[in-house]
């Protein structure tokens, strides 16, 4: 499977919309017969905007719905119909509603094809950290993050490669408290797309950096 929207390696960093488009492309390519997908709160929700008509992608929201439609506007807003980010959404034909235990059973049982999540850090073996900064005075709050981390056949991360201080977020070992262990198999970032493999991290694409620059940036992460 080739990655991204037709292009291979770009000379510019990707915008969040370009990352979202690349993920949407890869979901469709990996699942030509359609897919059941959960898009995490925040940037991953942008992926929905890039799914082509007729892709057969069905969106799950963990607060109890399959076949969720776009955000609701104006008179379509119904306080009883929200996504997991508590934003009013709409219902597509073929939708179904179910309670929280059934919804999380669906995730935890491995029935979703793809889940896309944001992250603070991903380790080279695919550990995810996205729920807690580890700050001693932070109030812990996990929501569905730990269920989502292990809640699909493939769990992908969408993030910037560097944090605000310029430090890589793809790391040898997570320094933030982990959300799930060895659960991520692909990482989409502004500077490159990475596959987590048993042998190490493989650069699928580079954007605005050469592969050599990425290797230097991410060292000591093993790139293979």
């Amino acid at each position, binding site marked *: 499977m080739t990655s991204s929207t037709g292009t291979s390696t770009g000379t510019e960093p990707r915008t969040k919309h370009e990352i979202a488009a690349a993920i949407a492309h890869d979901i469709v390519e990996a699942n030509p017969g359609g897919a059941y997908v959960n898009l995490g709160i925040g940037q991953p929700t942008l992926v929905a905007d890039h799914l082509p008509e007729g892709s057969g992608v069905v969106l799950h929201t963990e607060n109890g719905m399959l076949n969720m439609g776009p955000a609701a506007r104006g008179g379509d807003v119904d306080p009883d119909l929200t996504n997991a980010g508590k934003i009013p959404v709409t219902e597509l034909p073929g939708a179904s*509603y179910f309670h929280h235990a059934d919804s999380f059973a669906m995730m935890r049982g491995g029935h979703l094809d793809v889940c896309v999540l944001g992250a603070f850090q991903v380790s080279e073996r695919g550990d995810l950290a996205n729920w807690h900064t580890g700050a001693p005075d932070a*109030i812990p709050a996990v929501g569905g993050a*730990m269920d989502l981390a292990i809640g699909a056949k493939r769990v992908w991360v969408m993030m910037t490669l560097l944090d605000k201080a310029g430090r890589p977020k793809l790391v040898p070992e997570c320094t933030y408290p982990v959300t799930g262990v060895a659960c991520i198999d692909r990482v989409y970032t502004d500077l490159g797309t990475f596959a987590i493999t048993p042998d190490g991290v493989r650069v699928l694409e580079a954007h605005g950096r050469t592969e050599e620059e990425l290797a230097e940036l991410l060292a000591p992460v093993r790139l293979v």
Partner: protein
Amino acid sequence: MTATICGSYDEALADTPDGATVLVGGFGMAGMPVELIDALIRQGATDLTVVSNNAGNGDTGLAALLVAGRVRKVVCSFPRQSDSYVFDELYRAGRIELEVVPQGNLAERMRAAGAGIGAFFSPTGVGTPLAEGKETRRIDGRDYVLEYPIKGDLALIKAHLADRMGNLVYRKTARNFGPVMATAAATVVAQVERVVPTGDLDPEAVVTPSIYVDRVVPAAHPEEASA
């Protein structure tokens, strides 16, 4: 005991004892039994353990119950929100206990309580700080953490319609925790938009069978209760 249709929220909660564990439905405002929480504040029970997905927003509902000093401990998945300042302050002041539970474990632990399961090996949380001190086991090549049931003395939930027997249907994603909490508490109180005659709900579409429901309080037409 088949369900009682109550004339008021206050009547439905009159016997709530201090120290009760109260399961509170809702995900954000969808499915939140706001009027029942208000009645619980008026009723006065204290030293409560509240099990709910969040720990209150703004100054109303759960947050008001917290402000009133009635809650000893919160069990939830996501206490920290943009407007959870009431909980935040109490927590930082050491005036409230917190047990953070991954949302899927929260739902499944209540489901276990309702289903008579003694404990279960969960795939969620393995290797994380939330599994620290818990029993783990590798089964068929995958690691799991042992989780125990969460049982309530009281569940407060919001549904769309009830029939007079107590069968419930919900509306869209407001269904969320309602059906599972209804199975997990000794006394289950549901606030609903309307009570319809028994036989008006499609038996194939009932989500919470009447066996789980003890008291129903209709919102739109409380006078129905005496009908």
